[in-house]
């Protein structure tokens, strides 16, 4: 099923300038695995070497954070939008 990954402006250098990418994946994890193959630098900015989403990166399906759903195993429906955002943190 086809879903959209929204790429934040801060990471568009890693997506070739694209603000959105279309992937076909049944779960968030599968969508990120597709990114690992198609856009390795973008994937590496979102996930560390262990495959975990970086501590200060938020991954949302539509308007819900995946931590409030089923994490990376959250299932996707056609037309869903995965949004990647930097967390509210810093100093």
């Amino acid at each position, binding site marked *: 099923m086809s879903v959209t990954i929204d790429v934040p402006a*801060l*990471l568009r250098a890693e997506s070739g300038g694209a603000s959105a990418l279309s992937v076909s994946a049944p779960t968030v994890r599968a969508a990120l695995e597709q990114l690992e193959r198609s856009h390795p630098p973008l994937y*590496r*900015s*979102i996930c*560390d*070497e*262990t*495959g*975990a989403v*970086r*501590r*200060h*990166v938020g991954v949302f399906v539509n308007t819900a954070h995946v931590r409030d759903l089923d994490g990376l195993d959250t299932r996707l429906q056609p037309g869903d939008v995965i949004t990647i955002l*930097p*967390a509210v*943190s*810093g100093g």
Partner: protein
Amino acid sequence: MPDRVLLTIGTKKGLFVAESPTARRRFALRGPFGPGVAVYSTLTDTRRGVRIYASSCNAYFGMKVLISTDRGKSFKETKSAPAFPKDDGRALINIWSLVPGDDAKDLWCGVEPASLFRSADGGDSWEMVPGISNHEHARKWQPGNGGLCMHTIVRDGDRVHLGISTGGHYLSEDGGKTFTASNKGIGAGFVPDPYPEFGQCVHKIARHKDAPARLYIQNHGGWPDRPGIGVLRSDDHGKSWRSIAKGLPSDFGFPILVHPDDPDTVYVMPLEGMTRTCPGGAPAVWRSENGGDSWTRLAKGLPKKESWFTVQRDAMDIDECKVPALYFGTTTGQLWMGREGGEKWECLFDALPPIHNVKVAVV
């Protein structure tokens, strides 16, 4: 003929480069590069032209290695940064040290969690060095306040010295294939055994290129019950160590340097052990000209009071001009230069972001 002094200044909010003729009357500042992102390691590599490398440790999106081929006027990312193998289970947190390797493109890199990487192509690809990264002790090392970092790489032919906080000093005598904990005489104040086999909180290691058997360590001192373990010297390639802290106001500190022309001249920046700030609010660099047998306070031009900053482990360096100058950066964002080997201090920049790293090269 080298005629310019290049300072690389890694801060909490990016990298700055300051450049001056060797008279060092005025430094022009450029940056920040990689703005907003912490820089803990820099290297000016002069093996094939001038290349400046810097780590860029983005808390959001991961680690990068920056490179400049125009003396720090512009930077771009190398093709990749060090990364653990996928099945390793560890993830890169920070890059703490970058040093030149054997041939013109060979780079060595110490990271957090404490591991060693090498690049054979000038930083575009990296491989983990298993002899230390998968050492039998590696999963037993514990993070200090700065994290579990491999902050020092000292190379001397087939001998490689590594400083790990908290892991201690590790020595390879086969070019980095295998490593042995070599901590005889290096104390620890935070475990019951005062002289453990490994696990010491070594802060920095220094060596003079013409005296490879002589090494100096700034260790984590400042322990009332275990005095004198903070500043140490080895005369046998790091096989054993002895205290040279007598005469210092505190044996706690982070950086340690050796004069480029004299292996007997060594510099430290003592800090109060509990607060990690300048003793009495009055900063001073201390110099020994006899390998640590006695020490002299160098503070002319530095504030006499009300200065409570920290100087971090890589935030002090010395140039290789005819009459060398020292430089240190503070956690309050000042960059100081000490002319004539630290005899006369002046503030070059007084409102940078908190400074993690200061390195100097004459190019």
